[in-house]
């Protein structure tokens, strides 16, 4: 008995009235959808991933793509995807891997929250003529300041301040490792954050030497595999981040497949060519909150207490209590990654089913830290599904100090969220190490595009703040009065600590 084939996922067709046979589709598709036979372009739709590379390169708009051209008998429970996953696992007996973030149709809380604006009783502010203060400092803030007068009668600060990161805008780029993404992608991101006065994460993969000129704008990551981690690497970063978990796959480690470990990736990660890079699920020197404190302090001690240390966790059920523990570990910021966070590859069952939404996690953590009087001890960085400046503004109003964007920054480089990152053939040159594909990204142009995106969101954030009569990001942070819930249930409103619309 055979299961036969499943229906086509995508159907690609060429409008021959428009096609001028320039062959750009053939050249651009790294999945092998197109081939030339005689004077004809032959299409193998089964290989298509809907990455849109051919469509974006076609000078005549002659290519059409249709998702799920073959109908199944419709059924609300047994969706096409449910049926196809079973067929796949009946064939292979294996764990299904998938790329990008959570693809289940959960309600988006951001889209059920609305922002406020001034009318009559307090004036709104025009960012064109009034200064808007978006500068954000990440790290510990003292609970009190002590001063003394010196001999000349000037006042001097006595309190020793912990090192902070200075951001010109509360948007950073999250950790995507060299290996998961290409060098030209990392270089584009590095150029953008340097220009915009913000920071990017290196991911767990060390730092390629080409990134050294931008190191003052990088946050280096220490994850459970400790790939690429040595004292030079730690000293290069502006801050250090311990990765405990990731929103796309809470509770499990990572495996960079051997195919992606090329000469340069092997050198940066400091592992043999072609071997799997395995990051275990836990850090095996962290089995408790006390052990976490030990690693935080160890990293600080190694870098002479000059750098802030962040701890990144996936947003899970007990995120608030966990963050409260982190706040007592000497860490300077807690990064919370929501269940919509992206990834190069994750078991689908984790990607789609484990973790909680970032909106609820931010509010719960901010609330708990305030309740316990330790909110000043750690900054909150939110990530996992921030799509636009509205999500950014809402995140800050729920209590975040800044956000990390990942997928959004890749879309600015061409990514169309096709979700095939784990195959290493990304035709946009992002999630691949194949040089001819990597060369498709010019870091100058890529950097410009990503900087444009950050700039645009920053402008929009200023406008939103001005409309709400706020001229400083501190006045928006945790300011739930500026949010109202629309069609959210009472339980959710309570967690978010937000009033419903009309209240």
């Amino acid at each position, binding site marked *: 008995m055979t299961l036969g084939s499943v229906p086509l996922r995508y159907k690609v067709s060429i409008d021959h009235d428009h096609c001028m046979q320039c062959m750009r589709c053939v050249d651009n598709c790294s999945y092998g959808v197109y081939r030339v036979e005689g004077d004809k372009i032959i299409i193998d739709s089964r290989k298509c991933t809907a990455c849109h590379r051919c469509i974006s390169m076609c000078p005549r708009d002659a290519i059409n793509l249709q998702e799920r051209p073959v109908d199944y008998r419709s059924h609300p429970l047994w969706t096409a995807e449910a049926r196809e996953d079973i067929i796949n696992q009946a064939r292979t007996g294996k764990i299904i891997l998938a*790329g990008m973030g959570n693809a289940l149709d959960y309600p988006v809380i951001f889209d059920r929250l609305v922002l406020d604006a001034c009318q009559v009783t307090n004036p709104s502010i025009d960012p064109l003529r009034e200064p808007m203060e978006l500068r954000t400092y990440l790290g510990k803030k003292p609970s009190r300041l002590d001063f003394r007068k010196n001999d000349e009668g000037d006042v001097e600060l006595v309190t020793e301040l912990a090192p902070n990161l200075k951001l010109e805008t509360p948007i950073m780029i999250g950790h995507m490792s060299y290996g998961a993404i290409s060098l030209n992608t990392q270089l584009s991101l590095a150029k953008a954050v340097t220009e915009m006065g913000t920071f990017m994460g290196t991911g767990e993969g060390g730092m390629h030497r080409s990134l050294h000129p931008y190191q003052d704008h990088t946050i280096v990551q220490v994850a459970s595999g400790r790939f690429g981690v*040595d*004292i030079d690497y730690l000293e290069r970063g502006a801050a250090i981040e311990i990765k405990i978990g990731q929103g796309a796959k809470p509770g499990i480690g990572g495996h960079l497949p051997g195919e992606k470990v090329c000469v340069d990736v092997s050198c940066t990660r*400091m592992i043999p060519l072609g*071997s799997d890079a395995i990051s275990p699920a836990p850090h*095996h020197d962290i089995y408790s909150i006390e052990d976490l404190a*030990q690693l935080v*302090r160890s990293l600080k001690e190694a870098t*002479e207490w000059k750098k802030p240390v962040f701890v990144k966790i996936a947003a899970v059920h007990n995120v608030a209590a966990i963050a409260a523990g982190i706040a007592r570990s000497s860490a300077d910021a807690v990064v919370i990654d929501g269940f919509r966070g992206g990834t190069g590859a994750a078991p689908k069952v984790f990607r789609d089913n484990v973790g909680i939404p970032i909106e609820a996690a931010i509010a719960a953590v901010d609330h708990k830290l305030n309740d316990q009087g330790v909110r000043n001890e750690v900054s909150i960085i939110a990530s996992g599904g921030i799509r636009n400046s509205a999500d950014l503004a809402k995140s800050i109003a729920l209590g975040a100090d800044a956000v990390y964007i990942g997928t959004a920054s890749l879309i600015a480089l061409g990514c169309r969220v096709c979700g095939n990152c784990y*195959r290493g053939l990304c035709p946009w040159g992002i999630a691949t190490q194949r040089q001819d594909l990597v060369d498709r990204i010019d870091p100058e142009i890529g950097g410009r595009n990503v900087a444009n995106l950050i700039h645009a969101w920053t402008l929009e954030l200023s406008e939103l703040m001005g409309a709400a009569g706020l001229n400083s990001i501190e006045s928006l942070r945790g300011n739930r009065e500026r949010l109202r819930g629309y069609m959210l249930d009472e339980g959710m409103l309570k967690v978010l600590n937000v009033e419903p619309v009309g209240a």
Partner: protein
Amino acid sequence: MEKLVIDAKGMHYTPLNKQIRQAVAAGVKEIEINNVLGQRFIANGLRGDVKITINGIPGGDLCMFMNGPECTVHGDCEHAPGNTMDGGMIIVHGSAGDAVAHSMRGGKVYVRNNIGYRGGIHMKEYESKKPMLVIGGTSHAFLGEYMAGGLILVLGMGSQPLMEDRGIGSGIHGGEIVIRGNVSDRLLGVGAIKTEFTESDLKRLSPVIEDFCSRFDIDPVPLMDTNYTRIVPSSSRPFAGKYTWE
């Protein structure tokens, strides 16, 4: 100044490390630290050519991220000496706790007696950098788990049977674990297989055994035979067969 003596009694680790770093920067080649009692992170991230002697019991993460120095401990060690160490050497005249040489990528850790759980976990090698963990006694479970390179050598002196704990080399995908005597199959972790320890292996490892013995004033001769078990990965890609694409 060639030698510095520090009395660490009641001292916090930060001023202690500051003193060590300043001394190394000033060209001191030998540092003796007395009355060490639980100070963590000693020689953390330290670089340079210096010999450090610790008299007492250092706390966790001794020599973490260290690259270069040689550190001798006259006493036992806590959790994770040699954690993510890059180069240099730790010589422990005693026993050590869990996660010894965790993620170590270069240099040597010698422990005269026994170690706890997860010794040499995720050790890895790259080109000329091959980390080495040598244990005079025996080890608890999960020795060399996720090991990606380097050498773990267990000499089993003074313990009978030599290894009793399971999970040896679970998920190992590089490097080798060599254990004195025979190791029962039921102690091997997933992905680890036993191979014969040959004369050429002995020839290759005898400088290591001799060096270890010379550091602790032990006669190496009784250890110079092929009565060892060599444990290696069954594949450099232990998880390759676990997944299917969406």
